[in-house]
């Protein structure tokens, strides 16, 4: 259930749509041959096209087009075979052309939808309005000088895919789930690295509020500078309450662009001129319309990987995993691949337990990703195999796991070297059981007179005698026989 805000005059709900700017993974820029690497020295990745020198002409990067189509297919969206680049006019020092080349009336990707997974297990469909290609702007630094700004055009002209959602989101949790799923899809597709702290994925949040039950949309505000999922949720919490307070006091919302200020946890109005949104779009005369063949789109479609939702459903069906475990395992492709190697021809639920509870647990604690795991997926698979065929007990397996994590060694080698094989020889276990019974006549007496809880004590003693290597089930059975 979406969040409802109780006001003084009634219950309110939020209506939220997102514009996500995802930088497409390409070697060179959308319209020039300058590089796109993050963090280069200022203005070293700028061509005369990016600097908007007179007479320079844009030439479209075919990789940018491919990435946009690929992303559109991954978002289950319609690919438009005919799209048009237009000029969006505005003046700002980080955009030397005086206009951004973007797409407006004819975007390359049209309507689609994705599924988001909410923490309560609910699945919700969120509509995608469009995806269009556009140039990124440069970067300005304002804190170096009291009266000057510093401009670096390295980012100027990078390929952005602007992904616009329908206003289908209702609270911060849904926004978080949407951004998480979108980033997962982009990473699976290999079209954007989804790195929000390096700015390669950025979100603008459009939000309005209305009384629960109203079908009419309220006036919305656009919040910029939202650079993490957490920031998006915090900005939504603040902005929804700000709007409700104004409306309940009898005021009205101004449609405006606001800036999220993470230092003070507030949104602030950007002192924008009345005609800030007068972009005067028109088709860029330097670029012809982009016309694609259906065959080209079909060929890209053939190269799509299995996407997160398909993978999740397959894991649930083929491996018998629950929705939660499956969603943890598919959150990245490498994690899913790791699990599948571990589970290969083995007990999949046991494999999922070891990957999620043991491995991810300790990796998380050490701040490592699964790619950095000291234990290879083959070796963890072997460990699961050793448990499954009763070579070692689950208890011993934890020790072997710790050793594997420390040394990266093969579990079969560890078990062999340290003599950890489970004892399943009835005679050997029986001897231990007899020994424990003989050493504790008083406890045996108490047990026989009805103190059932002591059974655990005997099991523990036998396991201790065997240094954890006795098969616990056999210990149980033998003890039951001997003590009855």
């Amino acid at each position, binding site marked *: 259930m979406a969040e409802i805000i109780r006001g003084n005059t009634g219950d309110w709900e939020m209506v939220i749509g997102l514009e996500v700017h995802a930088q497409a993974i390409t070697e060179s820029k959308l319209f*020039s041959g300058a590089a796109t690497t993050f963090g280069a020295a200022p203005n070293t990745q*700028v061509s*005369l096209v990016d600097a908007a020198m007179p007479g320079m002409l844009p030439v479209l990067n075919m990789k940018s087009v491919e990435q946009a189509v690929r992303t559109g297919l991954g978002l289950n969206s319609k690919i438009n075979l005919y799209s048009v680049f237009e000029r969006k006019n505005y003046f700002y020092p980080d955009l030397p052309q005086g206009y951004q080349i973007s797409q407006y009336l004819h975007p390359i990707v049209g309507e689609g939808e994705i599924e988001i997974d909410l923490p309560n297990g609910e699945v919700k469909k969120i509509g995608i309005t469009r995806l269009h290609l556009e140039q990124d702007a440069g970067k300005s*630094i304002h804190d170096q000088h009291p009266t000057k700004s*510093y*401009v670096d055009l390295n980012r100027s002209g990078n390929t952005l895919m602007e992904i616009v959602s329908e206003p289908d989101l209702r609270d911060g949790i849904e926004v978080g789930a949407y951004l998480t799923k979108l980033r997962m899809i982009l990473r699976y597709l290999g079209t954007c690295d989804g790195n929000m702290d390096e700015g390669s994925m950025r979100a603008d949040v459009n939000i309005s509020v209305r009384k629960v039950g109203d079908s009419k949309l309220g006036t919305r505000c656009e919040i910029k500078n939202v650079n993490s999922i957490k920031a998006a949720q915090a900005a939504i919490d603040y902005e929804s309450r700000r709007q409700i307070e104004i409306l309940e006091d009898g005021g009205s919302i101004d449609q405006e662009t606001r800036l999220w200020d993470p230092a003070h946890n507030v949104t602030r109005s950007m002192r924008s001129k009345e005609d800030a949104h007068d972009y005067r779009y028109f088709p860029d005369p330097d670029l012809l319309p982009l016309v694609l063949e259906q065959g080209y789109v079909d060929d890209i479609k053939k190269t799509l990987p299995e996407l997160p939702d398909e993978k999740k459903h397959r894991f649930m069906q083929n491996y018998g995993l629950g929705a939660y475990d499956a969603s943890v395992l598919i959150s990245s492709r490498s994690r899913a691949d790791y699990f599948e190697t571990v589970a290969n021809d083995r007990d999949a639920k046991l494999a999922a337990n070891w990957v999620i509870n043991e491995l991810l647990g300790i990796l998380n604690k050490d701040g490592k990703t699964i790619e950095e795991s000291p234990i290879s997926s083959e070796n963890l698979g072997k460990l699961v195999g050793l448990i499954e065929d009763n070579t070692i007990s689950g208890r011993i397996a934890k020790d072997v796991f710790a050793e594997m994590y420390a040394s990266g060694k093969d579990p079969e080698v560890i078990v062999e070297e340290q003599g950890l094989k489970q004892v399943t020889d009835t005679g050997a276990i029986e001897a231990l059981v007899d020994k424990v019974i003989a050493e504790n006549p008083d406890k045996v007496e108490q047990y026989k007179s009805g103190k059932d809880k002591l059974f655990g004590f005997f099991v523990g003693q036998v396991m201790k005698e065997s240094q954890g290597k006795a098969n616990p089930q056999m210990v149980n059975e033998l003890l039951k026989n001997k003590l009855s």
Partner: protein
Amino acid sequence: MSVMDQKTVRKVARLAQIEVQDSEIEAVGKKLEGILGFVEQLSEVNTDNVEPLASVNEIPLVLREDAVTDGGIADKVLKNAPESQEGFFVVSKIVE
């Protein structure tokens, strides 16, 4: 009332980032009206059911391979900048 009243002329000038003195507004407005009137002649042509013309050349859009072939010319890029420092363009403060 003319299309190009003073308010509209000021707005167009502001959008185009062109400084127009108060004394020039009327004259500029007249010139703009002349241009609009000239272009307006085009509306005499019936364009129902005619697709917009993207180009007079009936050629497809040319695309390029994704390869780094440019950049590394910060000195050239900054050459005409009125002010620069440590590789950055330096402009009047633009933060809001």
